């Protein structure tokens, strides 16, 4: 019996226009199409610089798609992300689509515990309950308790990455985008993250991720989408920016 997909992408395109470099256009994504549903872990594969991160950012609304469609399952219907008003995208980020970025953007003065608790607070949970859940998640990821009351600015790359993962996973979003979540982690912590990913898949969440580590990829992938670099036809003329 076919499952209803959580996310449906058709002919997604993304081209950057750099107005201050002579208006040069950089096509990065072309004709990307896929479906992913609950329990899936779709791995984006391809050489670096081919737009895997760009694809994730388009799915999060962080980059504007230049063409094509991204439909996200929103309750009992689908919402077209590329046409959605900003308030809808903000709501989808709160309720439907989570994102684990490659680098943690640090806000000064906010403690690690509060960074991780924030998605729960945003969905209305009381402060103490949110912090309790955040503590549990951080413990699972082996982030030492003495760090919880500190802002993550001075943490190591691996510690920051784990804080990022905790924040991304804690909200229970049906769709989760992961950009190199294990890049800075040692083998033990990689294993923890793999387990967390597996738990999420078992709970019916749909994951789309970039993993540069072959082992991790093998451990979690249910689908793979190869992204090849866009071939620019150099014989055709480059349109100047209009």
């Amino acid at each position, binding site marked *: 019996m076919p499952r209803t997909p959580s996310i449906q992408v058709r002919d997604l395109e993304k081209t950057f226009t750099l107005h201050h470099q002579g208006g040069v256009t950089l096509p990065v994504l072309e004709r990307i199409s896929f479906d992913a549903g609950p329990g899936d872990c779709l791995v984006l594969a391809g050489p670096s610089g081919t737009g895997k991160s760009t694809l994730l950012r388009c799915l999060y*609304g*962080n980059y*504007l798609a230049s063409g094509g469609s991204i439909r996200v399952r929103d309750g009992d219907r689908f919402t077209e992300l590329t046409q959605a008003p*900003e308030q809808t995208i903000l709501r989808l980020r709160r309720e439907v689509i989570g994102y684990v970025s490659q680098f943690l953007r640090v806000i000064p003065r906010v403690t690690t515990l509060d960074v991780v608790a924030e998605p729960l607070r945003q969905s209305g949970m009381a402060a103490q309950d949110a912090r309790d859940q955040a503590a549990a998640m951080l413990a699972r990821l082996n982030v030492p308790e003495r760090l919880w009351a500190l802002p993550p600015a001075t943490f190591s790359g691996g510690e920051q990455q784990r804080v990022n993962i905790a924040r991304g996973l804690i909200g229970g979003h049906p769709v989760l985008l992961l950009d190199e979540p294990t890049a800075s982690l040692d083998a033990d912590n990689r294993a923890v993250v793999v387990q967390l990913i597996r738990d999420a898949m078992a709970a019916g969440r749909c994951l789309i991720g970039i993993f540069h580590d072959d082992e991790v990829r093998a451990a979690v992938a249910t689908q793979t989408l190869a992204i090849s670099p866009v071939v620019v036809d150099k014989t055709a003329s480059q349109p100047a920016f209009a």
Partner: protein
Amino acid sequence: MSAIQPLLSVRNMTHTWDGVHGCRDIDFDLFPGEVLCVVGESGSGKSTLLQAVSYQVTPKFGSVWYDTRDAGFTDLARLTAAERRMLARTDWGFVRQNARDGLRMQVSAGANIAERLMAIGDRHYGDLRAVAGEWLSKMEIEADRLDDTPQQFSGGMQQRLQIARNLVTRPRMVFMDEPTASLDVSVQARLLDLLRQLVTDLDLAAIVVTHDLAVARLLAHRTVVMRGGYIVESGLTDQILDDPQHPYTQLLVSSILQS
């Protein structure tokens, strides 16, 4: 699912001081609990936009609608001056760049904070003082400074006092004109963090005018970029900063010195 009603709607608004300089064709909505940053360089018209939207001047053209507590979604031009002033003192806040312009410098911090409450009829000295004291600690100022005048405060403290003075009536919307621009860099971070928390805790909607993209990144859900009086681009803050479309926005974003 029904759409949420905007708190503030600006349509086709134009306001110029001399027929030339100001803001033109401004269109945007602000939703409850949402922070909108208006980003632009000097002369972009962003301060004029703020003044016109908050009806400190009557816009020359266009309309501003606000979801009032009593009468629902109303065109502000239809309110009397008295009603607008009452709105400005209770349901709105206005934080000025220079704290001195938004405070009574000769009067104690406690009186500065409690004034709005006294203006709406609160008459118990003990309660007023207690509320003022609570707000002082919320703004991370020591409680024993309650009877000191703002003359004796540092710039950062004065700015935090100004904010408390505006928030004491629990407004739903706050206008801020370059709230950190007059402060030292080290002090700015603290103020921005405080603002961030307050916006969340009090479910505040805010329009923040700034030339500093870092302020937008930290505080705002959505951002509009102004140039030459017009809005040239608008969208989610992270999208504007990470994937700017308009040439001017790209120039602005690429000009930030990476720390």
